[in-house]
């Protein structure tokens, strides 16, 4: 057979490999408290004092081991956001800096229209009722009254869905 006369041949395959990723010490603690108590915590770097949320076991700036748990949220501020059309319906993805944290958490905004989102707007965490140790135990963040973080101290702002 003349190779120039051969139609292109493709061999089909499918790769399916199940995985299970241990969350580890830092994320394991974060997810355990989220699931069991509906509480959010960051880890504070002993050197630069930065509170990381999501927490990591070692500070990426100072290389110091981070062990001090710091309560954060459930209120926070949107630092930046986008409307993602990868899903249907589209969802609003946002970076939320929780009160008490120095870094922002990637999650989604719920209960508002894209045209109502503003960078800097106040939001609060919405927790799922049935929580199983996943970042999706947080249903997302919904708009919260515009009040300074200090005014909401001691007042539970998050709500269960």
């Amino acid at each position, binding site marked *: 057979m003349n190779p120039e006369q051969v139609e292109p041949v493709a*061999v089909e395959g499918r790769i399916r490999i199940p*995985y*299970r*990723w241990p969350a*580890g010490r830092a994320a394991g603690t974060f997810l355990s408290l989220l699931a069991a108590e509906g509480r959010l915590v960051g880890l504070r770097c002993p050197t630069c004092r930065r509170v990381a949320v999501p927490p990591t076991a*070692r500070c990426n700036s100072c290389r110091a081991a981070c062990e001090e748990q710091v309560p954060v949220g459930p209120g926070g501020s949107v630092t930046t956001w986008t409307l993602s059309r990868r899903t249907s319906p589209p969802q609003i993805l946002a970076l939320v800096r929780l009160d008490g944290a120095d870094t922002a958490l990637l999650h989604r905004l719920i209960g508002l229209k894209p045209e109502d989102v503003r960078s800097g707007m106040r939001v609060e965490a919405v927790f799922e009722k049935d929580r199983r140790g996943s970042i999706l135990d947080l249903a997302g963040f919904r708009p919260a009254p515009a009040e300074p973080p200090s005014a909401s101290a001691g007042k539970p702002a998050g709500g269960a869905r």
Partner: protein
Amino acid sequence: MNVAIIGCGQTNHRSRRLDVSAPELIDEAVQLALSDARIGPDGIDAIVVGNMEHFEGIHLSDLWAVEGTGGVGKPQIKVATGGTTGSSLAQAAYYLVASGFYRTVMAVGWERLSDSEGETTTGIVTAFDPIYERPTLAGAVSGLAILACQYQAKFKTRAEDAALVVVQARENAARNPHAHLTKPVTVADVVKSPLLSSPIRYLDMCPTSDGACAVVFTSDPGDRKSAWARGVASRHNHTYLGDVAEGSADFKHTLKLAAAEAYRLAGMSNPRKEIDVVEMYEPCTWAALDWAEALGLCGPGEAAGLWASGATRLDGDIPVNPSGGVLCTNPIGATGLVRVAEAAMQVRGIAGARQVDGVETAMATGFGGSFWNEVMILGAKP
């Protein structure tokens, strides 16, 4: 530029490290290497990191690993060459320092085989040619079984001869706190263990481990205990599995080439006499026999006798794998780097209960992708 290894760190390798994430696992090894090297994180100028593709299902694994490696704001390069990943990391770190571009470079290898528990073979199958071989090939064991069959047929080697390799490896592993499998086994245990792919039985084969290893290379060791790189060589190849019949593409062809180059660079003519200890990447007992011959530690067909004579034991004249080797510990992306770390520890005289007396020169090998081999010879002097 002469290059010295001044720090080695490795986790205690286990079948499952469910208590730590991958970056936390990497961090354990990195902190130990920094501490052994007596330098802080600022003393590392660049990082080379690697693991096996597919094994953790993480694309951009080098990005994910940064929290553990300390690569923020530094040059960090990923190297992934299959089973040789660990030794390729060492070679890349060596070249980055030898070239003079960086003073101190850390190589970091890691693997979490438990993340895809029971499915490792699936990960390995994706390494093979999807048109001709992937539909029929059954993973890592069968390729090595073909090697073992050839070796057995050529030299009439008995299963008991190969079994002795893992018996000795386990004896050594019992002296190594980092080793994964440390329970003693007998020749009878090995030849009665389940057959995986003839003639390879369960106990002839390396395990799957979770673990990480970090090694610090520098051109400026100061007064630190140093193991100097004296011969570094790598030879890769591609072939279809059907080509492993002895010839230009067989398993040990690239090992012979790499070893010859490393011996030349190190100025060696009689490796059996001039090398004090070998950390060999032996994925199965049969490979250890074949490759000891490829490395020139004995003549063709003499490896069974080499092991039986006790020469390869800790107190023999050519100790092989005082650490227990790959047969006892196999966090794959780290495995080749563990060979280099263990060889360096022998030269630096800090290998604890598995230390061989009076080591001046050590050799580490790396094997991967079925047909790739790398050799690093380390010495007490540059």
